[in-house]
Each structure stands twice: as structure tokens, then as C-alpha cells.
């Protein structure tokens, strides 16, 4: 009977080998596929047990942190936002079921301590749990608060972005109306349905006609390309016909033969329309490109929560928004408007970058929200290292532009404004026509201060209103925010 017994052992060994084979299939060969299955909730559960890093404002005020619930194996971390709605727009939220948005989403890897395979095996051997790094942002809590209060006081949706010109550090990114991220787990549907939208970050996700603030871009292109100088004299008469349609100055005010300084100071539409045609489509687009138009701002926010500024053909019927690079009414694009063949649309962040570039001698610094990253052991693993995003214009061009923009605040469309804490400041108003018959316009203001040694550049807009002027609605918000940051 020994022969069959030996064969039985062989059969048993074959059966056990089959078990080894299937175990290796599930645990090793098919493991990645199994982990990606929708029915597999383990990855989701594990994310709940990772301590996300803390997010703080530049002064250390906590914007987001994680609270541990439960002491046993089934503990979990829940995200908390002590400042409520104040930083909801740049920072966003992070919850297991509702997902992750904003800065929380863009910096998820850092905040959850995502590591390469090797480091995680070492950590496992050392018995360390995965833990995220803390991030100190560049955000200025008191200026953010002030900007939000001032926007809310207008009663209309709006946004403020303030950037340090020499570093690209984003000091303020405010958008109203906002939402309380702490309420996301319960009230996300309510937030989604809100009108006007509370989840839209109007500082960077929404595009508006920039109006006369765009003249800074046109002027930069004209001066830097050599098409014109600050002393180039053109007619400021109003109206003048462009593309077969008459174009007027604000309030129909006529000017004589004037130079560029006077034209920018008083925001003369007819002068800049001619200047635009002198510059040409190709050169204007080239300079827009250098300023960052045509692509999402490079700040650390998710792509789907950023919008690229540019010239668009807008098809209201189909809701289409198509970027174009030719065939548009150059004269009207040059003054920050446009027509059916294409009109300029820009985000508040983009216009703040324009102001910051002029302030920084023509160099656009890459905008950033990160001051430093601190790992769980307390080591600083990353620190703001100013990076040039593009060389937009020469130092001389920037200096000439700055001088003209200073004139705007001294004797031009923003003459009544001042920045406590800065001897002088440079700015440009914008009042983009939305509905001429009803006199409804989108108010804008871009500025930087102090002129001699620029510390802060800012852009402000609010939703359109009847009889609104950029210098009256947006200007005071911009000067107040700059003054707060400068400690005035």
C-alpha cells in the first residue's frame, strides 16, 4: 500500500502548490489591480488614518489641521479649519467622502507625506506611521481678513489678489462670497447650488474683461518692442472710428494731441486703440504671453480650479469660450475690451501678476503660496526660493511704466487715493463696459507700492454695477490692503 500513499502525498503537495500560486496572485501579481478596484475601500480608509500636515498663515495662525478621533486601531483624522471661510478659496478642503479641493488638493502629496517605495519600506521597518508635512503659507492673515471685509462691504461678489513682486509670494487671495469648509461634510450640496456660487474662487477660476487695466499690457508691448516711447504723440480726440465702429473716451471726454504718459494718466481709449494698432497683433500677443496670458497661473492650485487669461471668442448660446490668436479687433482688445471676433478676459491673479511684473523691473516671478515645508521631524524640507517665470520687459520699460502709473495716482483717474505707509504708489484703474445703455461696468484696480521699492502688488475687481468706476469701487480696497501689508 506504500505506492499509493506516496502518490497521495504527491497529490497533496500539488494541491498545496495551487494554494501558494493563488495566494501569490492576490497578494503580489494582481495586488495593484485589486487595490484600484472601486469595491476596495481600504485605500480610502487608510487615507483617513494619515495625519495630514498642518497649514498655517505666514504669521503661524492655523488655517487647517487634523484632529485625531479615537485612540484604538480604528482611529481616524478629521480635517478642521479654525479660520472658517476666511481662507476657504485658496486653501480649499479635504474630506474622505467629499473629496479634496484647492491648495489641499494641489499639495496633497506633501500634506500626506507621500513617499517613494524605498522610504516607506524603511519607515515600516522602523515602525513609523506615515505622516504629512506641515506647510507655512505666504498668506497674510490680517490682510486677507481686511480684503474679505472690504469685498463683502461692496455687496457684490469680487476678488482681491496681492503678490510680493520680488518673490512671487501670494499674500492675499480673497474671493467673496465664500464658504465655511468645516461645513462641507454636511452642506456640500447646498454650497454647490448656491447662487452666486460660493465654491468658485473668483481670484483665479473666473475670467473678467479687464478694461483699462489692460492698457498697462499694451503700453508695455509698445514701449519694450520699440513701437513707441512715453513721448509718442497721438490724437486723443473722441470719438474715433476703429474697425468701422466709433470708439469714445470715458464720458466722451475729448483730448488733443497727447503723449503716452498723459494718455495712461487719464485712461484715454482712443490713444491706446491707435497704440494697439501700431504694436500689431503678433507683438501684443507675444507680450501677453510673457505676462502669463494663455496658460494657467503657476500658483499651487489644481488645474481645474484655475483659468488661463487671453483673447476669447465668446459664444453665449453654446456657452463656448474659445481662445483665438488672430482676426480680433486689435484696437478694442488693446483697451481691455473686444468684440465678436474676440475679447480680452483676465483673472484677478493674472492682473496682479501684471502689476507685480512692472513693480519688479520687468521680471515676472512665479507666484507661490508656500513659504516653507516642515516635515514631521521638524526639519525644513522646502523653502520659498524666488523663481523667475519670465523676462517680460526691460528694466527701463518697467521704470517708464511705473512712472506713468504713479502719475495715475497723483493726477489721473486715481488721484483721490493714497496708501498710508507708503509715500507714493502706482496704479491703474479699469472700468470695463458691460452694458453701455444701462451704464453697467466692471470696476478694476491694479497697483503696487511704494513706487521706489515695491513691496506689494495688488489687483481687485467686483461684479459689474451701474455707475461704478474702478477708481471709486476697487481702488479703495486695493489701497487699504496694500496699506495693511505695508504696516501703515
Amino acid at each position, binding site marked *: *500500500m*506504500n*505506492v*499509493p*500513499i*506516496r*502518490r*497521495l*502525498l504527491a497529490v*497533496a*503537495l500539488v*494541491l*498545496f502548490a*495551487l*494554494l*501558494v500560486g*493563488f*495566494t*501569490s496572485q*492576490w*497578494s*503580489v501579481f*494582481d*495586488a*495593484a489591480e*485589486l*487595490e484600484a*478596484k472601486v*469595491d*476596495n*475601500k*481600504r485605500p480610502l*480608509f*487608510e487615507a*483617513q*488614518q494619515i495625519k495630514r500636515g498642518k497649514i498655517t498663515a505666514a504669521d503661524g495662525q492655523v488655517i487647517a489641521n487634523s484632529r485625531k*478621533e*479615537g485612540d*484604538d*486601531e*480604528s*482611529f*481616524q483624522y478629521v480635517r478642521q479649519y479654525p479660520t472658517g471661510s476666511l481662507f476657504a478659496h485658496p486653501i480649499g478642503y479635504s474630506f474622505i467622502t467629499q473629496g479634496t479641493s484647492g491648495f489641499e488638493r494641489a499639495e496633497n502629496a506633501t500634506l500626506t507625506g507621500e513617499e517613494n517605495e524605498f522610504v516607506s519600506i524603511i519607515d*515600516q521597518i522602523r*515602525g513609523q506611521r506615515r505622516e504629512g508635512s506641515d506647510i507655512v503659507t505666504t498668506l497674510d492673515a490680517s490682510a486677507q481678513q481686511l480684503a474679505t471685509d472690504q469685498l463683502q462691504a461692496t455687496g457684490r461678489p469680487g476678488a482681491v489678489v496681492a503678490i510680493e513682486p520680488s518673490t512671487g509670494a501670494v499674500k492675499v487671495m480673497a474671493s467673496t462670497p465664500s464658504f465655511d469648509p468645516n461645513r462641507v461634510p454636511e452642506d456640500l450640496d447646498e454650497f454647490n447650488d448656491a447662487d452666486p456660487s460660493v465654491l468658485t474662487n473668483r481670484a483665479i477660476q473666473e475670467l473678467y474683461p479687464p478694461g483699462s487695466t489692460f492698457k498697462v499690457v499694451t503700453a508695455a508691448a509698445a514701449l519694450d518692442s520699440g513701437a513707441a516711447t512715453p513721448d509718442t504723440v497721438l490724437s486723443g480726440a473722441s470719438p474715433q472710428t476703429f474697425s468701422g465702429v466709433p470708439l469714445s473716451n470715458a464720458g466722451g471726454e475729448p483730448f488733443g494731441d497727447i503723449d503716452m504718459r498723459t494718455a495712461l494718466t487719464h485712461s484715454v481709449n482712443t490713444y491706446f486703440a491707435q497704440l494697439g494698432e501700431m504694436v500689431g497683433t503678433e507683438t501684443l500677443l507675444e507680450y501677453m504671453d510673457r505676462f502669463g496670458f494663455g496658460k494657467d497661473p503657476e500658483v499651487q492650485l489644481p488645474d481645474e480650479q484655475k483659468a488661463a487669461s487671453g483673447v476669447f471668442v465668446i459664444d453665449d448660446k453654446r456657452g463656448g469660450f474659445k481662445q483665438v490668436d488672430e482676426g480680433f479687433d486689435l484696437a478694442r482688445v488693446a483697451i481691455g475690451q473686444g468684440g465678436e471676433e474676440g475679447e480680452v478676459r483676465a483673472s484677478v491673479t493674472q492682473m496682479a501678476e501684471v502689476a507685480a511684473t512692472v513693480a519688479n523691473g520687468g521680471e515676472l516671478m512665479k507666484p507661490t503660496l508656500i513659504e516653507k515645508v516642515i516635515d514631521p521631524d521638524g526639519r525644513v524640507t522646502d523653502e520659498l526660493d524666488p523663481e523667475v517665470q519670465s523676462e517680460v520687459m526691460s528694466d527701463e520699460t518697467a521704470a517708464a511704466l511705473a512712472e506713468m502709473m504713479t502719475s495715475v495716482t497723483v493726477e489721473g483717474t486715481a488721484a483721490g487715493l493714497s496708501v498710508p505707509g507708503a509715500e507714493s504708489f502706482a496704479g491703474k484703474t479699469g472700468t470695463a463696459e458691460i452694458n453701455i445703455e444701462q451704464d453697467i461696468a466692471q470696476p478694476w484696480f491694479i497697483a503696487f507700492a511704494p513706487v521706489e521699492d515695491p513691496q506689494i502688488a495688488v489687483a481687485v475687481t467686483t461684479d459689474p454695477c451701474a455707475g461704478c468706476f474702478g477708481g471709486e469701487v476697487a481702488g479703495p480696497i486695493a489701497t487699504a490692503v496694500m496699506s495693511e501689508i505695508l504696516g501703515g
Partner: protein
Amino acid sequence: MSARNRELLGLIPVAGLLIAGFAAVFVVRSDEVADASLIFGAYFFAICLAAHIFLRIRLPNADPYLFPLVALLAAIGLVMLYRIDEGLARDQANWFVVGLALFMLTIIFLRDYHVLERYRYLIVVGGLTLLLLPRVPGIGSQVNGAYLGVELGPLSFQPAELGKLAIVIFLASYLREHREVLVVGAKRIAGITFPPLKHLGPMLVVWGAAMLMLVFIRDLGSSLMFFGAFLALIYTATNRVSFVIIGLAMFLVGAWFFATTVGHVGDRIDTWLDPYQDASGTGYQVLQSMFAQADGGLFGRGIGESLLWAPGAKETVENTLIPAVETDFIYALIVNELGLFGGCGVITIYALIAARGFKIASLARDGFSKLLAAGLTAVFALQAFVIIGGVIRVIPLTGVTLPLISYGGSSVIANMVLVALLLLISDRARRPEPEAPR
């Protein structure tokens, strides 16, 4: 070195492993090694030592590797149960003490296990009664659609565990007597030797019993385990592959018939083929097992470091992510925490036990001993295969326990008696001077 000294040497690493396992759970839980892990280890080692000394006195010639291997499985089981719930490990340790008591009683009172042959019909009737007990109204209990448990007041047990011993003892005894008859008069058709039709009678009876189990107990796995053990025994007794082929064919036809006519058997098979079609319903259990294994990878998460409960969930044995993690699905937790290496280790231990068991069978000097050892080994190995196979989707999921690792008193007691019988056979076989033939 004498057999018993080798056994003692084998037990030392087992105790070490247990201490290390408990220490690992402590470290994860409280970041410190408590004395309790040493106490647990010492306690376990003391019990094993007592059993070893007992074997030294009563069965000095028995196989030296079997008991350390059994202790190793028990140690792994205790560590995993301790990781799930402290109370479970304590209960299981107590069951081991009871199991070892029965182990010793078996060795004392069945010193001449041939007496079992005399009572074979009594034993088989008892065995079959045990198997059908779970269907008796009032005391039977259903788990996952299968009738495998009996509840008598506060006491609950799985009669199939003891039933398997009874069936194997009966078959070994019956086939020892009738093996010649089964072989005589065989005809060769197309190169395969077929037994005469009239001798297929006993085979039909056992096949009928297996089918009855499929329908009444509703568990394909236990049915497969019993029928597989029967085929192993009839093959050992006759050395005729034809019996095995005919038997397997009959089983498959029967299983196919009941799968298509009896709903719950068919459901199990559908779930086995495609668990994703009802991922939150019938496929839930086996999918959780597969996901846990995928999470384990090559080396596993480490003891006590896998995600056993969903965050925020109440940490009870009923609430674990892997369902029935302390019994049927304990293998999935082993792979989750110890990885493919851990899983292969456990399978290797079962393979080594099977090897020792069949070795005992081939060394045995008489037919009944050979058949009994081969049958007990086959049923033990098949049980491990059937439950691990169900958990890792080699075969449809079943409701038997993983021998000596899963939580449960009936399983521990039945398997300790099984091991005792194997050691009894081994001691007799390896005695230097054979006794006079009976």
C-alpha cells in the same frame, strides 16, 4: 539523537515564535513590551512541555516532528487571535488545554487502537448522526447558508469536526476487510482497470452520503473533504486509479446536478466564478479576503498593523473588515499581516504535517494502521486545502475551520485527537521490536 530529544528541540523555536508574535502585538498596541507576552510564551511552552514529557513516557518511539509542527500551528493561531481580540486568544488557549487533555486520554485509553475496528458500525452511525445534527430543528444553527453548527443552550459546537474522525475510522476498518474483494475480478477496459459492478456498492453508499451532505448541510467544502478522504482511502486500499476517476466523475455529476437545482449551492458557485457581480452582497466576503491579501503584498503589513477595522468603527470581532476573520477567513488576515511569505509558511507547515502523516502510514505494519493513518492525514490536509482554497478563490467558499489555527473548541479538540491517533500509530510502527502478530 533520540526521537523525543528531537521533538524537544523542535518545541523550543515554537515557544520563541509565540513570544515574538505576542511581543509584536504588544509593541504595536502600546509601544512597549509587556511581561504578558513572556508569560503567554512561558505558559504555552509549559503546556507543550507537559505534553512532550507525557509522550516521552507513553509513546517514546512516535514521530518526533509531528507534535512540534502541530504546536507551531497552534502558536500561529494564538498570535493571530490575540491580535484580533485578547478574549479570543484566552478562550482558544483554554481549548488547547482541553484539547491536550483529550489528546492524552486518547493515548492512554486507545493504546491499542485496533479496538476501534470492533465498534466500527457504532462509530459510523454516531458519525453520521453528528453530521446531520445541525439540521435537527431547535439545536441546529445555520451560518452563511451552511448547516455546520449545533447549539445546546450556551454550548455550541461543530459536529462535523468529530464526525470526520468517525467516518475515517469506519472507512479504514471497512476497507481493510474488503480491499481484496474490491480488487478481485476487475476488468480492464481501454487500459483502465474497472472493478466489478457489485463491488461499487460501498462506493455508492459513501457517494450518497456525500451528496446528502451537500443537500442537507449545504456545504460543498465539507462534502468535498469527506468524499476526498474516502477516495484517498479507497485508492490506498486498492491501488486502483479507476476508483478515483469513477468517484470523482460521480461527485462532479452530483455536484453539478445540485448546483443547478438547489439555489444556495449554485449561488456559491456563481460567486466563486465572478464575485464582482454582487460585490456588496454574495461576493462581499471573498472580495474582502482578496483585498486584504493584496494589501499584504510580499512581506505583509506586520502583526497588528493591518487595517482590521474601518476608521471610526467599533472594534468588535463582528465588525472586522474581513468577515469571520477569527474562523473561516483567518488565512486572509495571515496574508494581510505576514504577506505571501507568511501564507506560504503556513501552507508549508500543513504540507510538512501531511508528509509526516503519510510517512507514518507507509511505516505502519498492518493494513488498518496504514489506512487509518493515510485517511486521517488526507482528511486533515483536505480540510486545510478546502478552507484556504475557499478563502483565496481556488474553489467555492466553504464553512470549515483552518485546522489548529482557527478559533473554535470543536476544531481544536477533534484535531488534537486526530494527532493523538497518528502518534499512536507511529509509535507502534517505529517500535524496535515488533510485537507478535495479533
